[in-house]
């Protein structure tokens, strides 16, 4: 099963080794903005993965018919139509979460992750591998979102998925919530720490040094 093995690699590679968020710098905006709680992070992950897989499939299926000069506009229009569908579904069935996500569902349209994958992979591959690649990237993105969402919700409010895990002081417990966790800066620090952790485990991802200091002997001379 050589072909099956290749698909497996395409699917699992974006999880950690080529993670879209921490290595390729794609899709950051939403990754940070919706992670104050796990349920919004989860909704966002599912919506993005659906849009990503479907748009990769469609773009790949019509890849020979799109003229090269207007391909960006065509791709954006496909993505925007899918996003409108998702947005309407969320508003119909999950109105509360849809209110809390505010404009961020619509912003999936300009999420660089979607365009990045259609542009770099789906445009040159057959529909099935493109959709598997999209699914892998969607899962890699979801992984980061859920980890950050869980940390922020747990330490910011003591809850997980809305259920009280750590008893807060207000309710007679021992846990004092870190309100910083719910504010913007903490998301940057957490993601920075996550990038650092992944790159310490996998040193091949570390970026090269831009400036190499001269040796001590050369300076003395």
């Amino acid at each position, binding site marked *: 099963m050589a072909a099956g093995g290749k698909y497996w690699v395409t699917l699992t590679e974006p999880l950690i080794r080529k993670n879209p968020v921490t290595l390729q710098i794609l*899709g*950051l*905006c939403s990754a940070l903005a919706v992670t104050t709680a796990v349920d919004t992070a989860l909704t966002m992950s599912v919506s993005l993965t659906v849009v990503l897989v479907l748009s990769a499939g469609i773009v790949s299926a019509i890849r020979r018919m799109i003229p090269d000069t207007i391909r*960006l506009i065509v791709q*954006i229009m496909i993505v925007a139509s899918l996003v*409108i569908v998702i947005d309407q579904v969320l508003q119909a069935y999950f109105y509360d979460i849809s209110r809390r996500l505010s404009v961020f569902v*619509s912003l999936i349209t300009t999420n660089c992750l979607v365009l990045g994958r259609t542009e770099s992979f789906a445009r040159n591959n057959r529909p099935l591998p493109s959709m598997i690649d999209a699914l892998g990237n969607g899962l890699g993105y979801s992984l980061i979102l859920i980890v950050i969402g869980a940390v922020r919700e747990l330490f910011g409010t003591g809850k997980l998925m809305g259920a009280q895990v750590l008893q807060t002081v207000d309710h007679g417990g021992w846990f004092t919530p870190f309100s910083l966790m719910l504010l*913007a800066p903490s998301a*940057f620090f957490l993601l920075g720490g996550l990038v650092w952790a992944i790159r310490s485990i996998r040193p091949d991802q570390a970026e090269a040094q831009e400036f190499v200091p001269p040796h001590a002997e050369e300076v003395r001379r």
Partner: protein
Amino acid sequence: MSDVFNLFLRAMFVENMPVTLFLGLCTFLALSRRPETAVGLGIAVIGAMGFTVPLNQLIYSAVLAPGALAWAGFPEIDLSYLSLIAFIGVIAAAVQLTEMVIDRYFPRTYAAFGVFLPLLTVNCAILAGSLFVVERKYGFVESVAFGFGSGAGFALAVVTLSAIRSRLAYADLPDGLRGLGIAFFLAGMMSLGFSSFAQMAAQ
């Protein structure tokens, strides 16, 4: 008048696009290695937001809003679900048009920051500007102030970050933190700093 100025300051400092609302982060982090590129990107963003946000506001209030087609004799039609696709179309077209005009008449400017123009289409900050205008029901004058304010805020943040990062090229950082990792920490500290502007504009 003071309201409009207030809105401008608010969009620029209090609700700064990249560091407090997390919008446009991809370009914010990817193009902030050198101050020169950051300045080019900042100018391009100010231009794009100052132009497309008011234009989208006009399109929304004249065509897409519920009941907006009353002047054409269709008062019961609500096209607001099409706003997303209309906005992104306007932005993509405006960017493409600007690129062609600059390429034709100002080739030197095109060489300097023409490369950033296609990126603006996928910059979430620009689309979000138009979406916020609809969500918060701004009028035309307010949307001009909001568009320029947000663009200026983005430019300010990206130029500042690039200045810090260019200095850090000489710092001895742990291997895993170099590049993207430290950029996140810097953005986090800038975000802390910007939160002190919160009291500047009246609520």
